[in-house]
């Protein structure tokens, strides 16, 4: 801990308003190629990375952080969490994960994001700088709502980008809403067909007929910007993905067929049995956000759960990200540590190390249609200096830089621990 304390002291001693930051003597995992750049100097200006060069010289006016040969990675990105929507899972008045409003298929989670949550500061201390935040099943089948990306900067405003896709659940968890999964797939296909018909514009004769039919349920809850319908049109145009949280082989095959039939981008979230469909998913360019820790089936949809799921998918050419790390309890509470532990387990079970790093940096962004997650000139300056291998749970983050600024990485837990350290 001497290292972390002295590093923080060093940072505090520097002028706070500096615009230029240089990380020197870094083992820089740029995410280009499968090996790090040794003894790298990373120069950051105005929130962006300017250069990464072996043995590079820090600009004279730069605030310098000496990484002392330790690994530096892009800030980690969790592909599926509910961080910022949950404080105490056991107390529903502190949970904002789902809409109970029948009129709100486009439930927009971004309006509930809370950067002051204790979950956020802990995740950031564990090296997480971005997270996909998804909605829980709503009462409006088949859609849950619209996920958002959170940027774990200091302060309350952690919204990165809202309305990044449409989210649905197929299988066991959705039975309460519309029954059999056959009805769930039917409902989803009907909604996409309907949206496509509207987007294409109805012929005049059919338009008349429509007016005689009872009006469809109103879309968009109070204040909903996209109101579901608009974003669904974007799904059909291939601009944003449709994320389907599902696990069973039969459902994953249905998802791959759906992607092909409608020509849309589909993401599988969870995908415990996705390894059985790996070739078909690769051919349909369906990405999978997996939890590599799972080797026991939570329900009958997940009987094929295995810890080499990520390795088998990646080998077949499927783009894989890590998310929902650690199952139920850790999904939100340890969105940073759980992510690293999950990626480490994936490596222990056959995923190449560089692929695992991509699954927690580049891929979770790319899957949602976003660039970044690299240490390359022009990239967002989100990066982490570690005191060891970032995929080892025994490693601590020494410094977490978000948008070019060093953030507070003393979590509430650190503060409690310090307060009671001398108690005997």
């Amino acid at each position, binding site marked *: 801990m001497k290292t972390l304390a002295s590093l923080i002291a060093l940072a505090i001693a520097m002028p706070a308003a500096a615009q230029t930051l240089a990380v020197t003597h870094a083992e820089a995992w740029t995410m280009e190629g499968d090996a790090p750049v040794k003894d790298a100097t990373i120069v950051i200006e105005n929130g962006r990375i300017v250069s990464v060069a072996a043995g590079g010289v820090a600009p004279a006016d730069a605030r310098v952080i000496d990484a002392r040969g330790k690994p530096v990675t892009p800030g980690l990105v969790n592909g599926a969490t509910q961080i910022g929507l949950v404080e105490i899972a056991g*107390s529903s008045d502190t949970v904002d994960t789902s809409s109970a409003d029948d009129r709100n298929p486009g439930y927009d989670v971004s309006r509930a994001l809370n950067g002051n949550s204790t979950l956020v500061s802990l995740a950031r201390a564990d090296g997480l700088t971005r997270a996909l935040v998804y909605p829980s099943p709503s009462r409006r089948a088949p859609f849950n709502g619209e996920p958002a990306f959170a940027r774990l900067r200091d302060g309350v405003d952690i919204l990165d980008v809202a309305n990044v896709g449409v989210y649905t659940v197929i299988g066991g968890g959705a039975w309460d809403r519309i029954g059999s999964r056959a009805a769930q797939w039917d409902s989803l296909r009907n909604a996409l067909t309907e949206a496509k018909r509207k987007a294409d514009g109805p012929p005049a004769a059919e338009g008349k007929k429509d007016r005689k039919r009872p009006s469809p349920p109103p879309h968009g809850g109070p204040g909903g910007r996209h109101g579901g319908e608009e974003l669904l049109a974007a799904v059909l145009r291939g601009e944003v993905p449709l994320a389907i949280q599902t696990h069973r082989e039969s459902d994953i095959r249905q998802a791959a067929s759906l992607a092909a039939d409608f020509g849309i981008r589909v993401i599988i979230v969870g995908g415990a049995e996705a390894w059985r469909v790996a070739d078909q998913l690769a051919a349909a360019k369906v990405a999978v956000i997996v939890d590599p820790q799972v080797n*026991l089936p939570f*329900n*009958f949809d997940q009987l094929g759960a295995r810890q080499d799921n990520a390795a088998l998918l990646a080998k077949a050419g499927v783009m894989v990200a890590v998310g929902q790390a*650690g*199952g139920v309890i850790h999904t939100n509470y340890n969105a940073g540590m759980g992510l690293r532990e999950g990626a480490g387990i994936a490596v222990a079970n056959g995923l190449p190390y560089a692929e695992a790093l991509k699954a927690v940096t580049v891929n979770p962004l790319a899957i949602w249609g976003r660039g970044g997650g690299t240490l390359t000139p022009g990239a967002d300056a989100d990066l982490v200096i570690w005191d060891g291998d970032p995929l080892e749970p025994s490693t*601590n983050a020494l410094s977490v830089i978000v948008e070019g600024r060093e953030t507070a990485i003393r979590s509430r837990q650190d503060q409690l*621990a310090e307060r009671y350290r001398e108690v005997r």
Partner: protein
Amino acid sequence: MMRMRQLGLSVMVGALLFAAPADAQRSAPLPWQEDPYPSRYQAPVASDMLLRGATILDGAGGRIDGGDVLVRGGKVAAVGKRLANPGVPEVDATGRWITPGVIDVHSHDGTYVLPLTEIDREASDVAEVATPNSADTWIETAVNAQDMAFDRALASGVTTLQILPGSTPIFAGHSVVVKPVRAPTVWGMKAAGGVQGFKMACGENPKSWGADDDNEGPTSRQGVIAYMRQQFADAQRYKRAVEQARAGAGAMPPRDFKLETLAGILAGDVRVNLHCYRAGDIAASLGVAKEFGFRIGAIHHATEAYKIPGLLREAGTCAAVWADWWGFKVEAQDAIRAEAPLLEQAGVCVMMHSDSPADGQRLNIAAAKAAAAGRRIGVDIPPERMIKWTTGNPAKLLGLDKQVGTIAPGLQADLVVWSGDPFSIYTHADLVLIGGAVAWDRAKPPAGPVSDFELGRGGVRP
């Protein structure tokens, strides 16, 4: 009939106090010392071997680099450097690590059986919740031995598990200690020779249940503690009546399985594992134990034990903790990852526990996370002490420390040969020995599913 206590110490004390009239009565176990469900565990055939050249963490705080372990007749025969080979097969463990088998003192395997189904949500076997006092229940009568979580635990280096009832009742029932070996029923897995365990709970879980309409039981923290005291007061009277009857003074009271069990706690024959989070709840419960003259074996979860280490140390009570479960309920807000290193530093007996078939496969990783959090605040616990949190200390809690939990001559050879540092996420359990028999060999995994459940199901294997 297996006795729970080999020594029968309390029987001897009883004899002195009450001058029992007959030898036969004096030697007969008291009702709470009887085990109605004796073990039928058959020790597997052991293989003698000499494990060579490993980094050994002995579970008692010792470390040997480049050390050997000689296993003979199911026991550890010797441990040290450059041991002479008496003519047994050698295993090259160079670059690998050897520790005692991992012990998880808080499992629900066999009762929280994955995959869950609707019937589990409706009526779970994790605990009997008809009443806040389920002291008469024995969790082993519910355990499904075909739970595949046992196979996952074994393959991750776990050699002993305590299955506890859940924390909804205040008095939740008897625990059972098992080995993760294949048997048609739990009694073929049951470990003998330890102290009978028992589960109690305080705080949010029991009070929330009591507060639900139609449920019996207290609705507040103070109500839970008051309920405990009344039950123990009743048990005191029952225990006295039994002991007096045994000494020839008065009639034996009718059997009451709840009071019998609580009397066993008062007598020190039944060891309490108490689910408790907040410092105040822990202190109040330790107060009840002091008032009624018994020792709580361990506070489980104990998320605020780091605030009151002195109370635990003085009571001789251990803390069984997670590394990083926190926040999911109101009483878990102040849980910290650095709890285990802080308690270790304060001289409290601490151990990792899982409460989960997933985390139960990675108790050493939990220890690694806790140690890392300790380093963040300048408390550095080395590997040879960390390993006590998953081996030596849990063995003491279960009363099995003369059999397992450490590597020493004469102890049962429950050992794990790890592919590397046991606190690394990349490390696998290469070889797991239970009683000197190879229970798991990563180089020769079973050809198909091990549990009956997985057998013949589409989708499970490639």
